[in-house]
């Protein structure tokens, strides 16, 4: 990997939260009503380091915070908290001349080649702009070399073109040429080929590969596409809801994923969604909302391996069914929609109502006691006693995954220097996660 043992980039506890509904009117309203402001936890505690000459991939579904991470690394967003060190120097709060100096060393390649070039600037102006800003001499010759490196030859022919006269592939090559024209040490590439025609991708990817190899650049690739990252990266980090849940070498992550989310991502056959051009991972449950972050493990609502309490003997499917019923009830049970599904008039069909709920939530092969608890809770729901149903479910079905936030760290029973944030694996030196009460409910005293 690298001769130089000092990381070029160190990220520690990086947070980026966005206020929901900002502005004077909302400020006044929240001040007046004393309501809490809501924040989107786009990036929420990210740690990693990048070594010189290394290519690292950050993967995850859309909305997991990977693009915000990229923008924060490029200093396009000011982090809410945490530190970023570049070559050992803290760059989190750089301003003015020092920030400009940092910018000379860090560049970014954007996803959409049709949007990342100013339509009113020629190729030459676009490429010469960084050189003007940093007062680098021999602009024309440098621009020509950068274009030729990006396989746009003869360079002279492109200098006077406007973006609308070029194809998507040519534009992305120009964006790459712009990124290298200043001779940076570190590049962030945000989905560099996802908007390109499939036939053009290989060419642009091999250009990126040549760029990192020949220039000895350190690069962070952001992508939802693991098969792409597998080819381009030395290491991969998997993000979920603003956190890195697993980070390790490419072989470790691809061939032997440990975190249940990573496993799901790798096993999922990507289903192309023609309407958005994105690919969604097929996982049960919804991606949580990043405003009200769940307590404990963020993946727990979708996790196929959520851990049942030790004293409870239960199979995984039954436990998941019970937990998702509990989650429904905790969020304020929407009984009406189930009553409507009975097809009866109002609440005339309680039999039908309980039947529907049982089918949906009593899964697997529950033991007699577990079945009894579940059915009793469903009966209580049919009687409209949501509170009591909730109490009953909470008492029996709970999990360490909802109480303790798993730390991304090396685990005793996982080999090598990979970090996994999951309770399934043995923590390094005692549990370092924070014990927190689950939201809106009293945590059971045991466990």
């Amino acid at each position, binding site marked *: 990997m690298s*001769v130089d043992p000092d990381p070029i980039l160190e990220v520690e506890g990086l947070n980026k939260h966005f206020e929901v509904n900002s*502005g*004077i009117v909302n400020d006044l309203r929240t001040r007046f009503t004393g309501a809490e402001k809501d924040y989107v936890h786009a990036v929420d505690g990210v740690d990693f380091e990048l070594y*010189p*000459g290394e290519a690292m991939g950050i993967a995850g579904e859309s909305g997991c915070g990977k693009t915000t991470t990229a*923008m924060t690394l*490029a*200093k*396009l967003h000011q982090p809410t908290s945490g530190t970023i060190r570049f070559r050992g120097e803290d760059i989190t709060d750089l301003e003015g001349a020092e*920030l*400009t100096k940092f*910018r*000379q060393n*860090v*560049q*970014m390649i*954007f*996803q*959409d080649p049709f*949007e*990342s*070039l*100013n*339509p*009113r*600037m*020629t190729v*030459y*102006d676009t490429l*010469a*702009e*960084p050189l003007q*800003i*940093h007062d680098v*001499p*021999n*602009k*024309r*010759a*440098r621009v020509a*070399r*950068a274009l030729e*490196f990006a396989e746009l030859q003869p360079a002279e022919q492109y200098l*006077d073109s*406007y973006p609308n006269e070029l194809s998507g592939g040519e534009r992305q090559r120009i*964006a790459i040429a*712009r990124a*290298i024209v*200043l*001779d940076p040490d570190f590049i962030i590439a945000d989905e560099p080929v996802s908007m390109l025609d499939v036939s053009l991708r290989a060419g642009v990817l091999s250009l990126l590969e040549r760029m990192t*190899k*020949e*220039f*000895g650049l350190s690069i962070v690739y952001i992508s939802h596409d693991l098969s792409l990252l597998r080819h381009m990266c030395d290491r991969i980090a998997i993000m979920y809801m603003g956190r890195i849940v697993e980070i390790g070498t490419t072989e470790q992550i691809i061939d032997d994923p440990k975190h249940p989310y990573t496993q799901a991502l790798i096993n999922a056959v990507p289903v192309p969604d023609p309407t958005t051009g994105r690919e969604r991972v097929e996982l049960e449950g919804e991606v949580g909302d990043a405003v009200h972050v769940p307590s404990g493990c963020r993946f727990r609502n979708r996790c196929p391996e959520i851990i049942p309490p030790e004293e409870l003997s239960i199979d995984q499917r039954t436990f998941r069914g019970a937990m998702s019923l509990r989650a429904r009830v905790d969020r304020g049970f929407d009984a009406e929609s189930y009553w409507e599904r009975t097809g009866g008039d109002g609440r005339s069909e309680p039999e039908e109502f309980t039947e529907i709920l049982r089918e949906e939530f009593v899964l697997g092969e529950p033991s007699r006691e577990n079945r009894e608890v579940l059915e009793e809770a469903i009966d209580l729901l049919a009687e409209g006693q949501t509170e009591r149903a909730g109490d009953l479910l909470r008492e029996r079905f709970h999990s360490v995954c909802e109480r303790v936030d798993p730390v991304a760290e090396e685990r005793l029973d996982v080999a090598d220097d990979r970090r996994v944030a999951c309770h399934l694996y043995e923590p390094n030196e005692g549990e370092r996660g924070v014990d927190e009460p689950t939201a809106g409910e009293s945590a059971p005293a045991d466990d």
Partner: protein
Amino acid sequence: MSQREGTRELFENLEGYDELDDVDSRRRAIRLWSETFSEQWEILKEDRLVVFGAVTITLFSLIAIFAPFLAPHPPTERMWDGGMIMQWENPLWYGGEGGYLLGTTAEGYDIFSQLIFGSRPALIVGLSAAVLCAGIGTIVALVAGYYGGRVDDILMRIVDVAYGLPLLPSVILLVAMLGPSFLNVILAVVLLQWRASARVIRSQVLSIRERPYVQAAKVTGASDWRIISRHIAPNILPLTFLYGAFAIATGILTEAGVSFIGLGDPSQVSWGTMLQTAHTYNAMYHQTWWWFIPPGICIALVVISGFLIGRGYEEVTNPALRGNN
């Protein structure tokens, strides 16, 4: 640092000829804008109403420029002396004597000459209001949209207040306070009209600010000024022109309205003051329609032309509207 060799090699042995850059970039900018405009003109000239508007405005501009040569008489020279007030000369094609194309006013001024000279204040107010409204609106929009936050909040609340004021009554009030002069009419129109362009262009700035090419410029270290002037402003300029075209029309209409109620510049003959004197002398009652119909038609023609051009240009700047007719 062996790994850095590659880059060094690529940018080694460079020979610069930077001096050419400035000339070249100017040449490129001219080429881009001339291409843009000729492209837009290609679309615009397909629209007959736009052509009509453009021809009308050009015609009136020529008339305004060459007014002294076109008008048979100075506009404020009495055609006959002898204190006759409630009396006028009919047009020559209506049994009038003295060969006045549109007759004279009750004060003895040649109506045709007044009509020709009246185009000057109309167009001056229209054009200066257009330039100033679009210019101020654009600057406010750029500052508010780009910097956002408090600056944006404050500027947009001012726009909201400006929106709360009814145009004509406020102009009347302002002109009455500042005194009836030509400049004050322009000032009043501008004070009240920059709001529309400011609001719409700001929302455009907000969206351009988030475009990847602006982000890319930031990553390379571009200053705020560079981003505003080179990346954002050129991309909203078509909208500025659009609001300019609409402001011509409102400016002229407002000038006519203010003059009609007697708050126009007393030393200037405009279509609005012509209507006002016609009204004062009960031209309607005396059925001397050649006195008040022609200035009315002129106002309508110029105002409609401004709107037609604006509407046509709107279709060019907003392709979603194109192809409706």
